[in-house]
């Protein structure tokens, strides 16, 4: 199965003329938007569900909402962060409605409970390089609270800055930093020896 590449090289916004045409109801222009951003939207939906069929449904919902709500978009601003915010809202709302499996929807600021390792820890011999480690990482991310999954995805997959994440998720900058730090720390501890530590 082909996999998506990671962050650092996020898709650039489309030319303003394409976005304006799509806003005006041009389906060919809107198709370009779907083609350009389907990977980013699907990645968020997949990270929140870890289920291809559910991610596909959510993706369709995101783009249909974009089509319906395009008139509310300010063309003077970049489309990508706005669309990612729409995608996260669709996913969060689906989780709230319990239409998707979820761990916990919200992480409190005082989330200091010690993390306990899963009962079944694979040994280092099983944790080969490359894809196998990437798959272990996805399994670990699936166990994170939803807010941690979102912030990890926006930072490391979509390549957003802390400030952009703050805008997309509507969190204060300090909250972004704290949750990102805690999410990474949990992942480091969950993956343990597979990361090459002793």
């Amino acid at each position, binding site marked *: 199965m082909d*996999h998506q590449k*990671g962050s650092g090289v996020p898709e650039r916004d489309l030319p303003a003329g394409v976005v304006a045409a799509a806003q005006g109801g041009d389906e060919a222009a809107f198709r370009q938007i779907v083609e350009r951003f389907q990977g980013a939207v699907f990645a968020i939906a997949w990270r929140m569900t870890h289920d*291809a069929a559910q991610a596909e449904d959510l993706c369709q919902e995101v783009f249909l909402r974009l089509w319906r709500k395009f008139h509310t978009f300010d063309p003077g601003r970049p489309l990508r962060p706005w669309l990612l915010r729409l995608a996260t809202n669709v996913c969060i709302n689906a989780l709230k409605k319990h239409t998707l499996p979820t761990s916990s929807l919200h992480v409190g600021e005082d989330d200091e409970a010690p993390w306990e390792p899963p009962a079944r820890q694979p040994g280092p011999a099983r944790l080969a390089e490359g894809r196998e480690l*990437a798959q272990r990482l996805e399994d670990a991310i699936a166990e994170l609270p939803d807010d941690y999954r979102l912030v990890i995805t926006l930072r490391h997959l979509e390549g957003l800055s802390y400030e952009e994440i703050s805008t997309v998720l509507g969190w204060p900058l300090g909250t972004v930093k704290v949750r990102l730090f805690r999410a990474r720390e949990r992942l480091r501890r969950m993956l343990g020896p597979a990361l090459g530590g002793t």
Partner: protein
Amino acid sequence: MANCQRSRELAQAYLEGALASSERAAFENHLRACPSCRRVVAEYGRLFSVLAEPAIPQPPAHLVELVMGRVGARGAAAQRKPP
């Protein structure tokens, strides 16, 4: 480094290039003397590299057509509505 939480915060910021030059130099000095923090930095470094190459599948090939089919259906339905 006595404060484990602080050392982990520094390790993450170090790998993201977010430390000021003086902080970076001080942390690197500390790393030379502290195997525990070197291990944490190495683990975060590996974590960051795997996060950049995730095992996330590509969207299905038919996704664009599905979306555009529904967009077109909505447009057609809107046009059929009487003014």
